């Protein structure tokens, strides 16, 4: 897995500097991939084993991360806050 991903990444990073300018239309299409995939990762991470998202401590942690991202908090703060909120909720009796 590590070697496979390394190879794919090396091609993606290495091919750009060799290409002449890509058409605007192609660049615009591929620009849609990252936001779509990251949003999908948020959703799938929130799902339980059956693939359906749960309302639980994890969701609360993500809500905290959304709020902090919106307030332009630094990256690490968002991630740590998400974990801390989930851990605190679970620690409640």
């Amino acid at each position: 897995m590590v070697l496979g991903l390394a190879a794919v990444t090396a091609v993606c990073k290495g091919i750009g500097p060799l290409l002449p300018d890509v058409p605007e239309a192609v660049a615009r299409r591929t620009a849609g991939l990252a936001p779509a995939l990251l949003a999908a990762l948020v959703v799938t991470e929130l799902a339980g084993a059956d693939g359906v998202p749960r309302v639980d401590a994890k969701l609360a942690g993500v809500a905290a991360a959304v709020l902090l991202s919106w307030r332009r908090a630094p990256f690490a703060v968002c991630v740590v806050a998400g974990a801390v909120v989930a851990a605190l909720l679970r620690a409640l009796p």
Partner: protein
Amino acid sequence: MAALVVFGVSFGVLAVAGGIPGWQAVLMSAIVFAGSAQFAAVAVIAGGGTALAAIVSGGLLNTRYIATGVVAGRVLPGGPVRRALEGQLIVDESFALGVAASGDPGKPDPEATLISGALLWASWVAGTALGALLGPVVGDPSRYGLDAAFPALFVALLWPLLASRRAVRCALGGAVVALLLAPWTPAGVPLAGAAVAGLVLA
């Protein structure tokens, strides 16, 4: 740089918590050097997906580097081989620093891009090693909310991308497709579906 060390530590801890051996996590940071793709691949593996699904999800996230590479290629020095190697140091952060140094989004400063890329790579690998060592000490990931750190991290990566209405549309489309596919398809398929949604909606 400090931010990337912290980012690397979180990758190391989460990779180990997700069942990746520590040395593989460090190797991955050293030879892949693409944060969001590495997190995506580890998330797929941790969710029970296959190695192929992990490679595809991570690889699709990296297609954006083709576009940044084309832009950087206008200013990078040297012949084709050297430029392809220099391209390995171009990640979101080093590209942004290069653009900040030149003040022109179409012409990043090559020296600033490459030097910051090399420093970021060292920070990323060192952070991962530290995280991989800390991971087993942390133990059960859900006790410290580490399972919530994964989606929180994807939120934090996603947020700065939502600068245009088109990006918001792609993100919503990707989320909806993943939501619909997740209950009845194996790990990795919802991400592939989201990728298609992103291409169509962009």
